[in-house]
C-alpha cells in the first residue's frame, strides 16, 4: 500500500462514521449473517415444535410469532442486506470506481438497519407478543385483530424500506456515473447488471410496501377502513398491494444471486459465459414480468376468471427467461475445464436445487392445480428451494469466492467442502419431504398436524437441525480465515477469475481505483 493512501480510522468511530464502500460492505455482510443466525434460530424453534404431533414446546400463538419473525428477518434482515453488502464491496471494484457515488448516504442506509431490527425483535417482549400474522401480514388479521406491537412492526418496515431505497439509489447512481472509461454497459460484469436491474425494482416497489403499511397504520389507529369491509374497504385490496410489492421482491432477492452465479461458473469452467447479451436481456425480461404476475399468489381469493387466466399465462411466461438462464449456465460449463472448489460446489448446488424450485414454481403457476397446492407445505418447499438453495447458496458461494480477495487469506478448502455437502444434504432432507406432505394436504403455518404427516415432519426437522448446524461451521471457517488463514498474494486468487476486481492487489487495499483503470477485455469475456 503506497504512502499516499490513508488507511481507515481506528476504533469504533471507523465503523460508525465510515464512508468507505468496503467497510460498509463488511458491516452489511456481518449484520446480515447475524440476522441469518437469528432467523435460523426461529426456524429451529418451528422445526422443534413440529418434530412430533401434539403441542410440544411452545403455544400456538407463540408459534405464529416465530413463523412471522422467521420470514421477516430472513427476507428483510438476512438475504436483502447480504446482497447489498456484496454490492458495496464489489460494484465499485468491478466497474473501476473509487467508491460508491453517495458515500455518506451509504453510511446512513446501513446504520438505520440495526435499530429497525432491534425494534422488530423487541416486539417479542411486548404485551400481546410479537406480530403473529405471517410475513405477508394479511389484513384484517394484521389490523383489527393484530397485537399492539403491530405499530412497531409498521415503523420497522418503514425504516428498512427507506434503507433499501437509499441503497438502491446509490447503486443506480454509481453504475450510471462512475464506470471507468471504456466500461460500457454491455461490458459490465453480470453481477453489476443484475444489481442495476434489482435496484430499479427496489425503487419501484418499496414505496408500494410503505403505502401498504401506512394504510394499515391508518386502519389501526386513525379509524380508516382501507382493508375493512365493514367500513367500505376491502381485505383483498391489501393482498393486491402487498403482492404488487411482494412479487418483484422475490426477484429482488434472486436476481443478484443470478449475477453471482454468472460470475463464478465461468471462473471455475475457465470459459467465458455462453450468452452474455441474452443473460442481460433475460434478466430485464424477468424484471418486467415480475410486475404483471402478482395475483398468482391469490388464485383462491375469488378473482374473476379472466383475471385468473391473465395471471396464469403471464406467470407461465417467466419460465422462458429463467430457462434461458439455466441453459446458459450449463452451456458455459459444457466443454470447459471444470474444477470444484467450494464456490463452484455451491453454484452447482444452486443450479440443481434452484431449477427444482423453478419446476415447482411452474406447477404452482397452473391456476386450477394451485387450488390444491395453495397455502400447503408444497408452497413452503417451493419457496425454500428458490430462496435458500437459490439466494442463500449463491451468497455462500460469493463469500467463499471473494473472501480471499477481501482479506488476503485463503479459507480452509476441506472445511468449505464439508460445509457444502452437509448443507446440501441437510437442506434436501428438510425440504424435499415437504413436497409430499403438502401434496397430501398439510396446510402451512400450523403448529400441530394430523398423524399421517408425522414421519415426514420428523425427517424435515432432523434435516433442519443438520442444515442449521452446518452454518456454524461456515461461521467458524470465515472467522478462522480472517484471523489466521493462509496468506494469498496473487492478484487473481483463482486462475479462471476475470474482471477488474482481480486486477487490484490482494488483499484489496482500503482505497482502489483512485485512478480509473484501463478496461482490458471485450464484451462477453467476463
Amino acid at each position, binding site marked *: 500500500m503506497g504512502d499516499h493512501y490513508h488507511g481507515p480510522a481506528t476504533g469504533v468511530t471507523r465503523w460508525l462514521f465510515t464512508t468507505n464502500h468496503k467497510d460498509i460492505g463488511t458491516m452489511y455482510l456481518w449484520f446480515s449473517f447475524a440476522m441469518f443466525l437469528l432467523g435460523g434460530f426461529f426456524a429451529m424453534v418451528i422445526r422443534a415444535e413440529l418434530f412430533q404431533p401434539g*403441542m410440544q414446546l411452545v403455544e400456538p400463538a407463540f408459534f405464529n410469532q416465530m413463523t412471522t419473525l422467521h420470514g421477516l428477518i430472513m427476507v428483510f434482515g438476512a438475504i436483502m442486506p447480504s446482497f447489498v453488502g456484496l454490492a458495496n464491496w464489489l460494484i465499485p471494484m468491478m466497474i473501476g470506481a473509487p467508491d460508491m457515488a453517495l458515500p455518506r448516504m451509504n453510511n446512513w442506509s446501513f446504520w438505520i438497519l440495526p435499530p429497525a431490527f432491534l425494534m422488530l425483535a423487541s416486539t417479542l417482549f411486548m404485551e400481546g407478543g410479537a406480530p403473529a400474522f405471517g410475513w405477508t401480514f394479511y389484513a384484517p388479521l394484521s389490523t383489527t385483530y393484530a397485537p399492539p406491537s403491530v405499530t412497531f412492526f409498521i415503523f420497522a418496515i418503514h425504516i428498512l424500506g427507506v434503507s433499501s431505497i437509499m441503497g438502491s439509489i446509490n447503486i443506480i447512481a454509481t453504475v450510471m456515473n462512475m464506470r471507468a472509461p471504456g466500461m460500457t454497459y454491455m461490458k459490465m460484469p453480470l453481477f453489476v447488471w443484475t444489481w442495476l436491474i434489482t435496484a430499479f425494482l427496489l425503487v419501484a416497489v418499496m414505496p408500494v410496501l410503505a403505502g401498504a403499511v401506512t394504510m394499515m397504520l391508518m386502519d389501526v389507529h386513525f379509524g380508516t377502513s382501507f382493508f375493512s369491509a365493514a367500513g367500505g374497504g376491502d381485505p383483498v385490496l391489501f393482498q393486491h398491494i402487498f403482492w404488487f410489492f411482494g412479487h418483484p421482491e422475490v426477484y429482488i432477492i434472486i436476481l443478484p444471486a443470478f449475477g453471482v452465479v454468472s460470475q463464478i461458473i465461468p471462473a471455475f469452467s475457465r470459459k467465458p459465459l455462453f450468452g452474455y447479451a441474452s443473460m442481460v436481456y433475460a434478466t430485464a425480461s424477468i424484471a418486467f414480468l415480475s410486475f404483471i404476475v402478482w395475483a398468482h399468489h391469490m388464485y383462491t381469493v375469488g378473482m374473476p376468471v379472466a383475471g385468473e387466466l391473465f395471471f396464469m399465462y403471464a406467470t407461465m411466461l417467466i419460465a422462458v427467461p429463467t430457462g434461458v438462464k439455466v441453459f446458459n449456465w450449463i452451456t458455459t460449463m459444457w466443454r470447459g*475445464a471444470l474444477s470444484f472448489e467450494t464456490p463452484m460446489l455451491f453454484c452447482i448446488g444452486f443450479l*440443481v436445487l434452484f431449477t427444482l424450485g423453478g419446476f415447482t414454481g411452474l406447477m404452482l403457476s397452473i391456476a386450477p392445480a394451485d387450488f390444491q397446492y*395453495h397455502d400447503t407445505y408444497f408452497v413452503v418447499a417451493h419457496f425454500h428451494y428458490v430462496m435458500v438453495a437459490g439466494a442463500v447458496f449463491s451468497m455462500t458461494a460469493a463469500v467463499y469466492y471473494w473472501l480471499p480477495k477481501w482479506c488476503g487469506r485463503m479459507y480452509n478448502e476441506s472445511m468449505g467442502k464439508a460445509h457444502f455437502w452437509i448443507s446440501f444434504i441437510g437442506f434436501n432432507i428438510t425440504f424435499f419431504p415437504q413436497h409430499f406432505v403438502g401434496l397430501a394436504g398439510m396446510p*402451512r403455518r400450523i403448529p400441530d398436524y394430523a398423524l399421517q404427516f408425522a414421519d415426514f415432519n420428523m425427517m424435515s426437522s432432523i434435516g433442519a437441525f443438520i442444515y442449521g448446524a452446518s452454518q456454524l461451521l461456515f461461521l467458524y471457517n470465515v472467522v478462522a480465515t480472517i484471523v489466521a488463514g493462509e496468506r494469498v498474494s496473487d492478484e487473481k486468487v483463482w486462475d479462471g477469475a476475470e474482471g477488474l476486481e482481480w486486477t487490484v492487489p490482494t488483499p484489496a487495499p482500503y482505497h482502489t481505483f483512485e485512478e480509473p483503470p484501463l478496461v482490458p477485455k471485450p464484451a462477453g469475456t467476463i
Partner: protein
Amino acid sequence: MALLAPMATAQNQVNMSPGVTEIGADIFGLHMLIMWVCVVIGIAVFGVMFYSIYAHRKSKGHQASQFHESTKVEVAWTVVPFLILIAMAVPATSTLLEVYDNDEAELDILITGYQWKWKYEYLTDSGEPVSFFSNLATPQEEIYNTQTKGENYLLEVDEPLVIPVNTKVRFLITANDVIHSWWVPEIAVKRDAIPGFINEAWTRVHTEGLYRGQCTELCGAYHGFMPVEVHAVSRDEFDVWLAAKRGAAVVRSALATQTLSVDDLMAQGKGIYDRACLACHGAQGEGGVGNAIAGSQVVLGDLSGHFAAVAKGVSGTAMQAFGAQLDDVELAAVLTYQRNAFGNNTGDVVQPGDVTGMKNG
C-alpha cells in the same frame, strides 16, 4: 398414475389425491402431466450438466474451449419452452373454466369462517332454516399429549357438513372476522372466506364417504385447529338427515320457552364451555388468551353485564360476539355454568326465557 390412487389416504402419502370429483381428477391429471414434463426436462438438463461435470474436468486434463454465443441455439431454447408452455396452458384453461362454472346448482350452502370454527347454513326455499357450527372435536388432552391421539387427530369435528352425492352443490363462502380458507382436498374445493365478501365454489361428489380438510389461510392462534369434515351421503339419506335437522330445530325453539333444571343447564353449559370458551379461557377458567372466568368481576357481577360480554363480545379484544353463534338455550346454559363453576358459586340460574328477554332489550 393409477398406482398412486390406492395410497390416497394412507400414512406417508406422497402425492396429491385425485379425489372423488371429476374436477379433482382433472386437476390431478394436470398436476401429473406437468410434473412429468418437468421430470423429463430435468433429466435432459441435468443429464447434460452431470455429463459435463464427469467428462470436462480440469483434473482429467480437459482443455477449456472458448466458444460462446450461438443465435441458433439461443432461439431454439427460447422457442421450444414457449411451445411446451402453450401445450400446458390449453388443458389448464379448460379445467379452470370448469372450476368457475357455478351455474345451475341443486343445493346452496353458506359457509362462514369464524375464529376458529365453521358455520354451515343450508339455503333452502322452504321449511325451518338449518344451520349449525362445526367445531374441532379432538380433546385438549390429545393435543397436549396426555392422552393417546386418535386416528383422525385434528381432522375431526363435532358436527360435519352433510351433502348428497351426484348433486351439484354450490358453496357460498364468507367469514365473520378474519380471512379463512375452506379446503377439502378430496372434493377439490379451496376458496378463501373473506369477511364482507362472498365467494362461490362448487362440487359434485360421486362417491359416498367421509372427506376431511382444514382451514388453509392463517387466521390467528388456533388456525391449525379448525378442520372441515364432509359426509357425502345418498340423496335419500340426505333428505332424511335434513328433515331430522329441521325437526330438531323446531324442538330446540320450543325448548327456549321452558324452564330447565339446574343440573341440565350445568351439564349443557359445560359442553358449550369446552368447545366455545375453553381455548381462550382455560379448562379451569384460569384464563389464557382471554381473561380468567374464575373469580371474574364480569361473571360474578350483574347478569346483564355478563350477558352483554358473551352475546355482544368485547370490542378491541379477541372476545367474539356469541349472540348469533349460540341459541337461547345454549346461552342460558353457558351463563349458568360460568356463574357456578370454577368456584364462582353465585347460585344464579339463568333460564332460556331470561336470555330471550335480555336479547329483546
